């Protein structure tokens, strides 16, 4: 369908979108997280162990590793309940790094030499099927009882609690489901690159996902999707800039934050586009 170069960029883009959405979910409930690379690592290693060592079918392994990641997410979520803002950012960062160091030393999954030999299972179709399912999920969430509860917690946690929202449950849910999605992303990633080692899942990767989301905008789920796509494609499109392209990338981020600190996409923009589209048809 595409040249293999374009296909690989699109597949990475799809995986990045999945990761950005996994971060957006706790974000939408007011919880910032730098733990997503850690959850991704858990998904990647767990699914590889299942397909490679235990002979599980890929999709079952993918689902189970998502669940494992979700359980870890709930565990991290517990101490995170009363912690906010910068403190939560640092807590999740420390957790992500601990996951990385754990896999670096865990001989069962290859330790420092990493883990390879998985089958190529991830392709354009299954990655974008999952992206499409997630879009449906987030669209429905945005117009649902729990979606509103999450948003109200982001706006004012205390008022949300007084309005009758069990914020402990809601936070654990947001964290857990976010980790589940990140676990899926990790499984897809492992069965595309076919070799994983722990330095790949370091804190810089978590920061990268974080940048995707804030760049795109945190008000609505289209933000992370568009933000991720632009930031994944920009370095490829400006290949002609050669060694200066990463500097260009950095500049784009700084300039956008100056011009649109709320991120590229906000609710108002989506409303305007919808209204305009309705007029056309």
């Amino acid at each position, binding site marked *: 369908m595409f040249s293999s170069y374009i296909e690989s960029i699109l597949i990475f883009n799809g995986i990045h979108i999945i990761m950005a959405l996994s971060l957006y979910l706790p974000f939408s409930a007011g919880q*910032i997280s730098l733990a997503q690379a850690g959850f991704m690592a858990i998904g990647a290693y767990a699914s590889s162990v299942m397909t490679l060592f235990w002979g599980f079918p890929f999709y079952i392994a993918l689902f189970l590793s998502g669940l494992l990641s979700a359980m870890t997410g709930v565990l991290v979520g517990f*101490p995170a309940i009363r*912690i906010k*803002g*910068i*403190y939560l*950012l*640092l*807590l999740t*960062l*420390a*957790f992500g*790094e*601990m996951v990385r*160091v*754990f896999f*670096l*030393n865990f001989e069962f999954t290859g330790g*420092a030499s990493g883990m390879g030999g998985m089958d190529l299972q991830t392709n354009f179709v299954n990655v974008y099927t999952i992206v499409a399912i997630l879009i449906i999920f987030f669209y429905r969430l945005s117009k649902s009882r729990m979606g509103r509860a999450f948003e109200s917690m982001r706006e004012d946690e205390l008022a949300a609690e007084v309005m009758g929202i069990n914020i402990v449950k809601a936070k654990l849910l947001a964290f857990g489901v976010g980790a589940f999605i990140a676990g899926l992303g990790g499984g897809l990633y492992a069965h595309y690159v076919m070799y994983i080692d722990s330095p790949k899942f370091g*804190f*810089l990767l978590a*920061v990268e996902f*974080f*940048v995707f989301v*804030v*760049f795109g905008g*945190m008000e609505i789920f289209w933000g992370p999707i568009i933000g991720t796509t632009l930031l994944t494609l920009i370095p490829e499109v400006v290949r002609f800039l050669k*060694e*200066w392209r*990463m*500097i260009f*990338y*950095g*500049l*784009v*981020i*700084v300039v956008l*934050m*100056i011009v649109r*600190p*709320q991120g590229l996409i906000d609710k108002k923009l989506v409303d305007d586009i919808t209204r305009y589209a309705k007029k056309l048809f």
Partner: protein
Amino acid sequence: MLGATYSLVAIGYTLIFGILNLLHFGHGEVFMIGAFIGLQMVLLTNCHIVIAILGSMVGAALLGLIIERVSFRPIKKEYHLAPLISTIGVSIILQEIGTRIFGGDIVGFPKTIRLVIYKIGPVQVTSVHLFILAFALMLMITIHLFIHRTKVGIAMRVTAENATNASLMGINTNRIVSMTFMISSALAGAAGVLVGLVYNAVSPFMGTEMILKGFTIMLLGGLGNVMGAMIGGIILGLMEVFSVAYLASSYKDAFAFGIMIMILIFRPTGLFGTRLHEE
């Protein structure tokens, strides 16, 4: 010894966090660029190491000023995450520039101090270590006096308490913010050269690792607490030395992060309580 240089970096973080409520992701890269400026000065002009450090402090301070003007001041402050993300953008740019100009390799630091080994009981100390320790302590004392004794330093602390009040009292907060960035960056620059001396190595990627250490120390000492950052840096340095002795070295990072998590859960104000800045 290393701890003292960590302290320098962490003080910078702490000042910026305390006064601007900003996690500055570009700070590690300022540290790296500072190290390179010092290195180049020694390599090109063959000057004394103290002059190289001072040079790198001036260079880093200018860099800090540019960062503040370009990526902090123009951003609307009601979006808390926007300045944080723009400093990440800055760190990407600086790291690329570092790699482009200085090359991607690790460069050894020329021997500028005559190596003498002193023995104090069972402990071995080299003249390089003593020099680093002395210089770092001197800078810390200076910064401490500066914050507590000078007009600008006091204005900085008032701004940290409450920026709106500070500007009502006639303090030019914009100027204070610039000063904060410059001072913090100068400290990071000095730390860069000193760390280069310790490890005898300078690389464009040395900043990334420092970011994490800086955060850990800042937490250890209490967010926004300058004194805490000084002591926290030394504690982390000591901890690293001892954990290398008693733990498998690859686990030593996990150890530091474990401590970070424990602090966050049980003592979010850090080991030394009071903060410059209440949320």
